[in-house]
């Protein structure tokens, strides 16, 4: 017996396991019956015959089951020959050409296969071929995409910070705002430990003060809001004490507002300035830590990008504006209308500072501060006009008239930089403004995040995403095309924002590359192709209407100021708005629904200004009923004043069920 045979008479368990058909395994038998070597070895043939059998069997390239069958056949044949006394060499000579034998045996065995078996093998073969083709294509794509180089050449964060860096420190308002609020924190006690909670405490005091007399004109007209805030529960005496003690700090806020720019140094994680970090309670975290990941400053491709910037000062400047708004109201109640004018002016200047850099969120915060200032003026003239002398009236009118359309306009430069900054980090650079997505693997991972929450963590994890990345990268838009679409979106937003509200065309705002935005989220192919535009594009429609609302509210304030000055001049409310002189220029505010002058009437001796409402029909100032869609019905629309109906503005009218019958009062005097 040969060595081979002896070796295989006791095959290892693993060998038997690997050579056992699945059926036997299911039955718990480790037969090892597919082991061709064992079959040959067990026969005990001379080694030269063993080798012939094995070479022929291997040469057939048949399945293991078929090989075993052939091996048995040949072994039997040789053993019969040996039994007949034929020598091994004689048998080998009689056998014929091994290669020819293997080839013929292969063909004939293949013919023996059943139709089903042939079908299965053909299918498997085709499948393997397809997989092979896919793998080759994938590898080509992977090599193509992973070899492309990303070049981060422009420091857009530095560009955003350039005005601050170039400014004289004495021109920056932020340090003084920070110091003023720090002082105010000391006045709000007893205080919680957390700084954010301290500011919340100040905010509660401000809210309580804002809800005190004089009541907002809308509350006087329509009654108090259905739900009042818990903030209103602050004791009145505490509010008084706070504002009395706060005057020096408020004066510092007014002083800060008079400076040319805010000067907050933008950085990932908020600020690198120790004074700022202490102010925001970030002492425990290392500077440059990305707040979105909580990780150290190195945020992969997005390290030091606009995407990682935090704007903690927004809360502080908004708090400053609210403090000034509350103080303006208190000043008029106290008969100090000059202080009120100073407070309103400071609010508008802080808003202007906040609008820079011109990223969307900064502009929205700035707009909200401007609208707060307008609301204060409207409330005060409605409730306490007698406490505002002519000089203050004129000062207010001049100040607000100075807010021209350019000053209140929408600027998307920061949003353009935002995309360009991301583009230079996620696209390769061919040197001519084009390239392809270079982190496709992360893209898939991000697209798998339903919230579409864009952040470095989502962009750098996921094995499955890594493998699919090159394919996705091939399917997404190139850098030049994506940049072109983004810039078109920004152009469109700026163009529509420059129009009057009744001329705004929302259709182009709802499209990305001629495709409805909703489809970007609903259709997977669009989600892939238009990444990352579909995830990054801001709600430009809302931004455009908000921008339009700020300009209209400015005009409304000017109209109301002119109305009050006319009353003083003629000794009573005019019969029509045509009696307003607008000596310094201007005209009555336009109705956002039809572009004509707003409607004016006197009801019970009180003047009332209203707009048409979504039905674009004049209902003689009658408000719409309270019944409507949603939990609040038409209540929000009725209480929203001029800007509350902004979603219904524009050339394209909202669906029929969103057109309540009735008008919207946008200002009413509190007395005859």
């Amino acid at each position, binding site marked *: 017996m040969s060595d081979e045979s002896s070796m295989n008479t006791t095959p290892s368990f693993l060998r038997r396991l690997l050579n056992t058909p699945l059926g036997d395994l299911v039955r718990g038998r480790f037969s090892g019956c597919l082991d061709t070597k064992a079959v040959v070895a067990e026969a005990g043939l001379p080694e030269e015959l063993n080798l012939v059998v094995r070479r022929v069997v291997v040469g057939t390239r048949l399945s293991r089951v078929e090989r075993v069958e052939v091996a048995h056949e*040949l072994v039997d044949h040789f053993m019969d*020959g040996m039994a007949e006394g034929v020598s091994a060499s004689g048998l080998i000579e009689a056998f014929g050409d091994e290669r020819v*034998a293997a080839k013929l045996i292969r063909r*004939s065995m293949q013919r023996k296969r059943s139709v089903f078996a042939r079908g299965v093998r053909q299918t498997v073969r085709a499948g393997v071929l397809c997989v092979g083709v896919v793998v080759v294509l994938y590898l080509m794509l992977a090599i193509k995409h992973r070899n492309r180089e990303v070049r981060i050449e422009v420091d857009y964060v530095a560009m955003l910070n350039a005005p601050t860096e170039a400014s004289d420190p004495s021109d920056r308002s932020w340090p003084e705002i920070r110091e003023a609020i720090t002082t105010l924190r000391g006045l709000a006690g007893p205080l919680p430990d957390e700084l954010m909670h301290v500011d919340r405490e100040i905010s509660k005091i401000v809210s309580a003060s804002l809800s005190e007399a004089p009541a907002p004109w809308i509350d006087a007209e329509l009654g108090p809001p259905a739900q009042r805030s818990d903030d209103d529960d602050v004791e009145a005496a505490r509010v008084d004490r706070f504002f009395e003690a706060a005057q020096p700090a408020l004066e510092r806020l007014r002083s800060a507002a008079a400076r040319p720019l805010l000067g907050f140094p933008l950085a990932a994680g908020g600020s690198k300035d120790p004074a700022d970090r202490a102010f925001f309670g970030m002492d425990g975290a290392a500077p440059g830590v990305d707040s979105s990941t909580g990780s150290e400053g190195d945020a992969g491709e997005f390290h030091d990008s606009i995407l990682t910037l935090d704007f903690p000062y927004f809360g502080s400047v908004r708090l400053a504006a609210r403090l000034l708004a509350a103080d303006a109201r208190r000043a008029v109640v106290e008969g100090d209308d000059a202080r009120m004018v100073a407070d309103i002016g400071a609010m508008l200047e802080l808003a202007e500072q906040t609008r820079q850099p011109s990223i969307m969120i900064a502009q929205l915060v700035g707009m909200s501060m401007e609208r707060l200032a307008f609301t204060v003026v409207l409330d005060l003239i409605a409730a306490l006009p007698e406490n505002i002398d002519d000089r203050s009236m004129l000062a207010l009118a001049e100040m607000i008239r100075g807010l021209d359309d350019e000053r209140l306009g929408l600027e998307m430069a920061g949003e353009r930089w935002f995309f360009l900054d991301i583009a230079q980090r996620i696209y390769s650079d061919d040197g001519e403004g084009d390239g392809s997505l270079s982190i496709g693997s992360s893209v898939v991972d991000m697209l798998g995040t339903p919230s579409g929450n864009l952040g470095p963590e989502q962009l750098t994890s996921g094995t499955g995403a890594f493998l699919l990345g090159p394919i996705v990268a091939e399917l997404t838009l190139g850098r030049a095309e994506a940049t072109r679409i983004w810039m078109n979106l920004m152009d469109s937003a700026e163009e529509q924002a420059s129009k009057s509200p009744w001329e705004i065309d929302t259709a182009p705002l709802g499209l990305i590359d001629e495709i409805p935005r909703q489809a970007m989220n609903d259709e997977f192919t669009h989600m892939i192709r238009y990444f990352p535009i579909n995830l990054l594009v801001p709600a430009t429609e809302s931004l455009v209407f908000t921008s339009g609302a700020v300009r209209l509210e400015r005009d409304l304030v000017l109209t109301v100021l002119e109305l009050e000055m006319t009353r003083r001049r003629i000794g009573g409310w005019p019969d029509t708005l045509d009696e307003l002189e607008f000596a310094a220029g201007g005209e009555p505010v336009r109705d956002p629904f039809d572009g004509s002058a707003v409607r004016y009437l006197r009801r019970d001796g009180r003047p009332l200004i209203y707009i048409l409402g979504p039905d674009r029909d004049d209902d003689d100032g009658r408000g719409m009923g309270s019944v409507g869609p949603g939990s609040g019905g038409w209540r929000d629309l009725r209480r929203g004043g001029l800007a509350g109906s902004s979603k219904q503005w524009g050339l394209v009218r909202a669906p029929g069920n969103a057109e309540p019958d009735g008008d919207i009062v946008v200002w009413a005097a509190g007395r005859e």
Partner: protein
Amino acid sequence: MRIERELMRGAGPVAVLSLLSHSEMYGYQLVETLTERTEGTLEMGQSTLYPLLYNLEAKGLVRSERRVAENGRTRKYYAITGKGETRLATDQKQWQAVTDAMQTLGVVSGKLMTPGLAIA
């Protein structure tokens, strides 16, 4: 005398079917019997026989069965099927016709064997 390959390709299956029409046989037995009965004329090596058998099996003309033989070893035995017998009858007629034609032409001479290979 060795037969040309092309001629063997036609004669081999008929010869094997003819042998199996009398009794089942295993591979080595078939080779030996063919060689012996044809005095080496239709001798074929394993490299020819087994593919031939597999082809016949694929066509359903023979069937095989592996079982223990008298000497205690397992062997694979081949037997002709009904379909194989029908095919054999057809092939015999054709061979007869060919041989008759060859005789007429003087290509072959002498007595013809009765259909099939005579078994002693």
